[in-house]
Each structure stands twice: as structure tokens, then as C-alpha cells.
């Protein structure tokens, strides 16, 4: 029994390394975040934005998924800046500075470039799986 356990564990370890190295097949020069996106990520964390918002459908359900808010909303940067800075009736005012707001937008830009959150129906295959390479 212990031998089988060890074999399974070794498979798990190999799979884990493969996941770390190859889970994102895109060109790293495209996917790397810049300093503003990284700073925006910290703003996102510090204010616990994931409690209410989702990225790729993961997070809280109080507010909308923000994965593609930059490319989908059709709103200007100014609109987003005002929205984030002052909040709404449902979203509290986090008293963010202008640079924090801009960094947060840079972070959302970077997320937006990573892919689409919604899977179009055309991507569903006959085996009920997805095919993103179509």
C-alpha cells in the first residue's frame, strides 16, 4: 500500500512542477506586469476588492466580474477613475489617491490582456470540453 502511495505522490509532484512551469503558454514578454500593474495589485489586495468582485469568475458576488471591464465596458478612463475613486451607493468610497486609482486601472488592464473570462459557446466541443485553440 505504501508503495502505491509513493508512486501517486511522485506523479503529483511531477504534475505540480509541470503546472508551475507550463500552465500559461503565452509569451512571457506579453504577460509580464509593469510596476503600475503590480502596485495596482497591492491596492486590490489591501482593499480586499476580491470580497465583492470576481476575476475569471473567482471572488465575491456582490459586484460584477472585472476581468474584462476595461475592454468590455466601453467606458472612458475618466469614467473608471471617477467610479473607483468615489464609489457608488453600493460600492463604498475607499478614499483612494489618484495614483492608487491609476495603478488599479493599470492592474485591470493587465488582467484584461490575459484573456477572456466568458467562454463563448463555439469553444464547447462534442466531448463537452473547451477548446481555446480553435
Amino acid at each position, binding site marked *: *500500500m505504501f508503495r*502505491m*502511495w509513493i508512486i*501517486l505522490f511522485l*506523479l*503529483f509532484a511531477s*504534475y*505540480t512542477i509541470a*503546472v*508551475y512551469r*507550463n*500552465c*500559461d*503558454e*503565452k509569451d*512571457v514578454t506579453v*504577460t*509580464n*506586469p509593469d510596476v503600475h500593474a*503590480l502596485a495596482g*495589485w497591492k491596492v486590490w*489586495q*489591501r*482593499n*480586499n*476588492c*476580491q*470580497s*465583492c468582485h*470576481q476575476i*475569471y*469568475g*473567482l*471572488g*465575491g*458576488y*456582490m*459586484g*460584477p*466580474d472585472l476581468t474584462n471591464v476595461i475592454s*468590455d465596458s466601453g467606458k472612458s478612463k475618466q469614467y473608471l477613475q471617477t467610479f473607483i475613486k468615489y464609489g457608488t*451607493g*453600493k*460600492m*463604498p468610497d475607499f478614499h483612494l489617491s489618484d495614483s492608487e486609482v491609476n495603478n488599479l486601472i493599470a492592474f485591470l488592464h*493587465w*488582467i484584461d490582456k*490575459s*484573456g*477572456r*473570462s*466568458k*467562454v463563448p*459557446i463555439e469553444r*464547447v466541443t462534442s466531448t*463537452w*470540453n*473547451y477548446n*481555446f*485553440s480553435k
Partner: protein
Amino acid sequence: MYRSLRLLIIGSLVLLLATLIFGLIASWAFLYPETYNKILPFYQLRPFHVSSALFWIISGATASLLYYKKGAIEPTSKWNAIAEATFIYLWLLSIIAIFTCYGLKIFGGREYWEFPPILCIPMLLSWIALFLAYFSQLIRKAGEKPMYVWMWSTGVLFFLITFIEQNLWQIPWFRYTYLREITVQWKANGSMVGAWNQMIYGTSLFLMVKISGDERIAKGKIVFFFYMLGLTNLMFNWGHHIYNVPGASWIRDTSYIISMTEWVFLIRMIQGFKSKLDERKKFRHLIAYRFIIAAEFWVFMNLLLAIAMSIPAINRYTHGTHITVAHAMGTTIGINSMILLASYTYMLDIDSTKVGIRRMLGGCYWLAQYSLMAFWLSLVVAGVIKAYGATIMEMTNFQEIMKPVLPAIKAFSLCGIGLLCSLSVIAVTYIRYAATFDIKKK
């Protein structure tokens, strides 16, 4: 050691109470944000609720493990006792520090671990103390070990691995691509659930051995097969969290294939219904046994949901909706909490208490089951409505998508009152017994 273990048992039950209270208030904050944003906003309540639930389950699982291993893995040395006490005190102090940060609105981690990452250090140290105490004792026990010992060991080991993995985002290389960061994060989160499930299911198996007096339940090829199947799912079946993430397709394929082995669990459960009925007639007077049966029912219900969500074509509709919440809450309340309450019922010898108390607990038990059923169904309905608006109708305005969902959320919040009333009476009763019971007895 006994004093610290008693503290952990009481602490875990206090966390259950906190989960229920914060959960109910958070549901109100979700429904009426304009009011609650001024007092206690949702983004502050949610981490309080989620962390309370997480720590109730992990603390309850470890308290049960530490208590029952006394009888299963003898002997305990003085060194073991010190290491176990170190785990308990460091663990509880870390939780207090985390809640203090939430109270002061100091956040900083990732989903479900939303506290400043520095607090992961004492948590990690505490788990290393538990790991050393447990395994140093285990290697001294010779001979064939029952399956619940394998399950406890797997849980302790994999919690350590996944906790470290959950913190890998702090190394810059993991943050260089968002898809890697999110994949690793959900790989760790998904497997961590499997880790605590191993600890809790191990306790459930131990309890069934003790209640029935039949040691064969925890031995043999079939039990071993299902343990290995569960372990395989723990290791490879986490991809359904990130099916929609456009990363490497082999991660999705692996998870999809492995998740289909869950049908084996489902078929096994259906096959076992007849024998369960006979068993039920024999033990139904025991409250501990009733909690285990409730957990089995919820395993069945949530397995149906899990299998559906593991099929990418269905996951396309369920992902990012309240169906995911139904699954998360259905498993943590219906399975994890029911088994932990069974464990505490057996540990505190509740089945030997006064008839009046047992009747009261029996009433609370049924109120909890009916409330949970309505609670779970409300979330499924909310999820279906959201999926209809967001995926089938392809609506883009979030407020419009959520408008028809809100009545289901109101029903969910109402059912939460039933859960709070029933489970808090049970928790408070158990806290009273835990404070005075003879901890050295079993």
C-alpha cells in the same frame, strides 16, 4: 496538553458560532449595502465569515484528530505533548491576530486568506509543530494501520503542502503571469479542501468503527480503493475552479477525466443505501450517528452538484454563480460541520446526557437539516437565475442580471436564521459540556 486540547475544542465551537453570526449579517449587508456600508461593509464581513468557517473546520478537524489518536496511535511522549500544545496555542493566537486585522480593515492576502501574509508564518510554524508531533508518534506504531490513520496522516501532510503552495504568490516568479498566479492559487485551494476532507472523513470512519464496534469497516481492499480514489481527486481534481481560465488545456483535460471518477463514489453510495437503512434502524437513537447520516445525505446532494460542475460545458453556466456558493456551503455545513458535530457528540458523550437535552438537540438537528435544505436550494435557484441572465441571455448590465436573483438571496438569508438558531443552540450546549467533560476518559 489536555488543557490546550480543551481550549482548541471550545475555540473551534466559538468559531462555529462566529461563522453563523457573521454569515447572517453578511447576507443582510449583501442585500442592503447602502445601510451596511456605513456600519460594517460586506468587504469586511465576508472575510470574518469565511475565515471563521475555515478555521472552525480546520480547528475542529485537528481537535478530533488529536483527541482520537490517543486511542488509535499510542503512546504519547512528553515531547509530543509539548509540540501539540505549541500547535494549539500558536494556531489560536494566529486566528486572534487575523480577526484583529479584519476588525482594523487591514487586509492583504488572497481569496479565503485575506489577512496580511506575515500572519501565515505563525500559522505555518504551528502546523509544522502538529506535523512533527503527529508523525513522530505515528512512526513508533508498528503493524498495519487502519484506514482512518492513513486519512488523518494524508490530511496533516497535504494541509502543510497546500498551505505552503497557497503562499507561493509571494515569490515574484509566480506573479509574472496572471494565469500562473491564479492557477497555482486555485490548485492549492482545491487540494487544501481535499486535505481537510481527509482529516474529517478519517474521523467519520473512526466514529463508525467505534459506534458499530466493527473494526473491519476501516480495513480491506474496498476501503483502500476508495481512499486512493479520494487521494487522486485531492491531487488532480482542482481544475474545475479554473476551467474558464485560458491556460494550458491539459490541466482542464486532466481535471475533467479525474472528476468523472466521482461517479464511482455516487454509484457506491446508491448501492449502499439498503445496508444503510438496516444500520439506521440499529443506531438511529444516537445523536452522533444521526449527524453522520446527515453528512452522508449531503455528500450525495453535493456530489450531484460537483459532478455537474466538473463538466466544462455545464461549468460554463454554473461558474461565477451562486451554484458554486451552494456547493461550497453545502459541503462545509452539510458534510464537514455535520461530521465534526458527530465527532464532538461522541467525544463529549452527549448521547448519555439527560433526555430533555437530547430532545432539544434532536429538535435543533432537524431544524438545521430543513433550514440547510431550503438554504441550499435558494442558492441553487439564485445560481440558475444568474446563469440564465449572464450566460444564456448574455446580459451585460450587472444590476439587471442581479435584480431577479435578489428574492432568492432574501430566501437564503431567511433560512440562515434557521441555521443560526439551530446550530448555535448545539454549539453553546457543546461548549458547556466541553468546559467540564473528563478529557482523559476515552
